[in-house]
């Protein structure tokens, strides 16, 4: 066995995966493990057989037991549902202030409810405090990690589940952090500091703050934010637009302090010391001591810890004059992290850092040798970039569902600029600034200039459209197929002349085949059903219709009315329904274009998220009513559509149109012939209304139509009975009249409405009316997104939050 630690780590990881996916009773596992160890030990010691497999199995069972043990103890001490209480605890994460909110993790010692005191034994909880004024925000900024606090009138709730398919699952995320409750506090006045900050964490935070202030002193304001993100890992300091560009181009690893940064710092430190004629042993000593400080100063993310552990081991081998075995060091780092927190395996940071590092360690050397370019350094960069891209591809698809085709090229050019110029100069300037700021200003100026140049180029690249590609998240077997074909490709191309050409060809075909298959699944397996998803966009409407052949109709893109906020209330990232709900969903579904965009009318809760959507996706045609844009938001949207030369059409009422085989839509409203344009009053009554027919089911989309419009439709059309009704105007009592229901008799009624909205939608009258008419009612405010799947003769409806039942019709 060449690398026992690698085998051990692989087994352990396997164990965590198995244990998390398949819950064997914990007692069984505890009972089985000693036997596995005994039998394995006997086999290896006395029989000398299969040491690798036995070590793998033993590590796997131990990993399973460890994960199960941790998972068993990750339980809340609050057994019954508690709604409000008083909390005494200590803050254990650096408080984050964003707009009018401050948020921190808190170790709770005691909870006082109406029933009495509950001992919480340091269970973690997420505390959110809303700030009421600028003054409160200023005093909130002084809150430090390690402070003992008493929070009164805390309303407790479970963290939210994902409300849309593919959306972020807060509850799962916090569960893995050991957090089961979120406490909301209204007003800074309800949070009292009862003990001064303690512990080493606070010193780390203070040091971070000092270094960040130094950065702000030596860098101009345009680049200071990016520099503090890059050098210290303070993501909140990075302006959100720049962050979006980095994410868009697949460069976000540069903004976080990643393994690359640790390598740069270690190289600078060790190189600088040996350059100053310090002996190797002393240089190693100093660097060894500095690494943990650096890791904690930059926030100890999994990638930094990984790189720190590997650097420490590497320096120790240098000291002991041994050959470094980096693959085993990587495995050791993985084992350490998994021992500390087995849930870390599921974090993107861990997966990316370890996956990419593993691939780089295995493949870089051989790949560099087979690359044809004459310049060795260029070969290196090409090999590293390509390997990193190939290794991160499935992980990014699995978590983010979108990749920019520019990523490879941009990484190829920009990563060397960052790692050879900006980052070392930045750290150099930072180091010098502690002695003399004038001395520091030269490297700071130089790196700032280079950085602004890079940022300018990135802005331009981001403005180029059409390079982003959405992917449905891959399945497990696809990931294995992909990993296998990449390994096969490596083996066949770097194995020398002994590998015949057919292997290289097969590997290439396999790799491209798997990628094409993932992108165009319906080419290979057609007959996917028609899917209609009523997204939960809060108060507003947004429906995505996908046909079996991949045509996409987007009906509205709900959003909020922008209401004026004071400067101090502004969040770093302003909430945008398009960016946070609609686009992620479309990415998750692997959608890359919208064939038809139906804008029922121009209210903010129907078009608020469309700006971001239109910017990201090419749109085929737009159907909207005849009203000229009535708001600033709508004008901007129409302008954007005109810029992209998207044809704007009026709904054609003449006949049903065929979208796909067996799928037709008939527009019912508004009747635009003979209408005078320029009617400026509320256009709710002129909402675009259409009837979709597919696989024997009829679905009526109503926008915000009200009683008057309904009457017009009733008079003009002989309405059939329908299967699904998108209830008009979020269930307002001004719509969905009894006369209409008498004709439609919908079996299912979907109400797209926000939780606790200020309009009081949906009206109980309408709900009662629908129930009496025999409709089952689905509400996005209670049940999250509602998905409707239609295949010929079959209709299936599902809510995202399945625990909440739909309202059943009254039975006569």
């Amino acid at each position, binding site marked *: 066995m*060449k690398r026992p630690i690698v085998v051990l780590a692989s087994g352990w990881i396997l164990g965590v995966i198995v244990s998390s996916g398949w819950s064997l009773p914990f007692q069984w596992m505890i009972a089985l493990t000693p036997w596995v160890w005994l039998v394995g030990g006997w086999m290896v010691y006395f029989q000398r057989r299969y040491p690798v497999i036995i070590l793998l199995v033993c590590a796997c069972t131990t990993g399973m037991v460890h994960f199960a043990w941790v998972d068993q103890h990750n339980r809340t001490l609050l057994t019954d549902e508690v709604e409000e209480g008083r909390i005494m605890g200590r803050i254990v994460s650096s408080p984050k202030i964003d707009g009018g909110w401050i948020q921190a993790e808190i170790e709770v010692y005691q909870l006082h409810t109406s029933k009495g005191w509950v001992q919480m034994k340091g269970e973690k909880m997420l505390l959110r405090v809303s700030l009421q004024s600028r003054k409160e925000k200023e005093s909130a900024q002084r809150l430090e990690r390690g402070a003992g606090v008493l929070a009164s009138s805390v309303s407790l709730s479970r963290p939210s589940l994902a409300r849309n398919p593919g959306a972020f699952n807060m509850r799962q995320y916090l569960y893995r952090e050991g957090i089961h409750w979120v406490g909301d506090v209204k007003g800074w006045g309800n949070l009292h500091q009862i003990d001064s900050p303690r512990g080493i964490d606070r010193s780390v935070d203070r040091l971070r703050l000092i270094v960040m202030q130094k950065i702000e002193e030596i860098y101009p304001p345009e680049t200071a934010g990016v520099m503090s993100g890059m050098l210290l890992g303070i993501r909140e300091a990075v302006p959100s637009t720049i962050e979006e560009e980095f994410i868009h181009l697949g460069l976000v690893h540069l903004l976080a302090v990643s393994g690359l940064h640790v390598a740069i710092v270690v190289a600078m430190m060790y190189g600088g010391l040996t350059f100053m004629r310090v002996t190797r042993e002393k240089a190693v000593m100093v660097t060894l001591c500095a690494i943990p400080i650096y890791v904690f100063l930059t926030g100890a993310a999994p990638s930094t810890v990984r790189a720190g552990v590997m650097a420490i081991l590497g320096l120790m081998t240098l000291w002991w004059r041994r*050959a470094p*075995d980096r693959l085993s060091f990587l495995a050791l780092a993985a084992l350490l992290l998994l021992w500390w927190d087995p849930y870390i395996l599921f974090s993107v940071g861990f997966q990316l850092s370890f996956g990419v590092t593993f691939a780089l360690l295995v493949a870089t*050397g*051989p790949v560099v040798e087979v690359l044809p370019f004459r310049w060795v350094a260029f070969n290196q960069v090409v090999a590293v970039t390509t390997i990193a891209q190939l290794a991160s591809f499935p992980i990014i698809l699995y978590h983010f569902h979108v990749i920019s085709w520019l990523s490879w090229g941009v990484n190829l050019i920009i990563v060397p600029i960052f790692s050879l110029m900006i980052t070392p100069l930045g750290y150099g300037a930072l180091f010098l600034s502690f002695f003399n700021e004038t001395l520091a200003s030269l490297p700071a100026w130089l790196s700032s200039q280079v950085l602004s140049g890079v940022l300018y180029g990135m802005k331009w690249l981001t403005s180029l459209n059409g390079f982003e590609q959405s992917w449905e998240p891959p399945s497990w077997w696809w990931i294995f197929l992909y990993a296998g074909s990449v390994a096969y490709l490596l083996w066949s191309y*770097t*194995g*020398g*002349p*002994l590998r015949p050409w057919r292997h290289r060809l097969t590997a290439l075909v396999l790799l491209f085949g798997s990628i094409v298959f993932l992108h165009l699944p319906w080419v290979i397996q057609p007959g996917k059903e028609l899917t209609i998803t009523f997204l939960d966009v809060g108060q507003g409407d947004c429906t995505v219709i996908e046909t079996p052949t991949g045509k996409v109709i987007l009906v509205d893109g709900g959003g909020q009315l922008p209401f004026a906020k004071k400067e101090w209330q502004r969040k770093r990232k302003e909430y945008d329904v398009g960016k946070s709900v609609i686009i992620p969903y479309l990415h998750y579904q692997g959608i890359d274009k919208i064939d038809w965009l139906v804008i029922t009318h121009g209210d903010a809760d129907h078009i608020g998220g469309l700006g971001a959507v239109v910017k990201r996706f090419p749109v085929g045609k737009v159907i909207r009513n005849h009203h000229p844009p009535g708001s600033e938001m709508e004008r901007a949207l129409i302008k954007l559509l005109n810029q992209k030369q998207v044809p704007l059409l009026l709904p054609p009422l003449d006949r049903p149109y065929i979208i796909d085989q067996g799928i037709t839509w008939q527009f019912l409203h508004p009747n635009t012939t003979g209408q005078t344009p320029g009617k400026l009053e509320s256009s709710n009554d002129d909402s675009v209304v259409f009837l979709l027919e597919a696989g024997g089911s009829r679905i009526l989309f109503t926008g915000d139509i009200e009683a008057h419009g309904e009457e017009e439709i009733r008079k003009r059309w002989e309405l059939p009975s329908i299967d699904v009704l998108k209830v008009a105007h979020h269930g307002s009592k001004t719509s969905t009249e009894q006369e209409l229901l008498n004709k439609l008799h919908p079996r299912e009624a979907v109400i797209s409405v926000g939780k606790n909205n200020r309009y009081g939608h949906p009206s109980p009258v309408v709900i009662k009316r629908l129930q009496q008419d025999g409709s089952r009612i689905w509400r996005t405010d209670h049940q999250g997104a509602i998905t409707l799947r239609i295949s010929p003769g079959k209709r299936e409806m599902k809510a995202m939050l399945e625990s909440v039942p739909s309202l059943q019709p009254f039975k006569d």
Partner: protein
Amino acid sequence: MRSWWETLFHTPKCRLCDSPHSAPAWAPIWRRVCSPCIERLAPIQGTICPRCGRAQLVSELCWDCKKLTNPPLTANRSSLSYLTYSRACIHRLKYQGQVSLAPPLAEMMVHTLLEARWCVDSITFVPLHSTRLFERGFNQAEMLAQEIAKRVSLPLAHCLERVIETPAQSSRGKRARQQTLVGAIVLKEGLERHVRSKHWLLIDDVYTTGATLLECARTLKKAGANKVYSLTLAR
């Protein structure tokens, strides 16, 4: 006994000499051998005699080959120059029984074989007399041939047999070698049909005068082989 460090961590080594050298397990053999070893092995490269594979300055028939008229051996190729280090390697394999050397050395031969671009149907090797085989326990040529056959996926045939026990060739002159070999190598019984009208590849460890290989080739030719090539580790 390995040190605790070497038990826990992998210390990559050269495939031939155990000095530190790192290369992935699937890399070509010339990557898995350290560069001092490559230099000492002196692989035959550049212009060679197109028939016997001797390294020389021009790419035409060498002096020895010009003298031969209608030789039974079509062509020969060798991977290494038979110098101190390669001789030592072959001795380690042959007389010290370091069988683990066979795969890397065979892989070097495969590289030479692929460069020669011959069209071969089947592989065989220079046989040992049964008493010698009993003494040594294995036939190094067979071992190399097995490794080669596995790597290029060609059938390996045990079709030759040494019936006269000849003294070790290495201690004798050129003329003496040729004479003692006459009739020493015969085809195994009942294999004539198997040999007929095929292109054969003969494997041996060392090519000195080519007497043994010529004798083997003659036997194969007599049995009706179409063409006979030979591949040796060193010459």
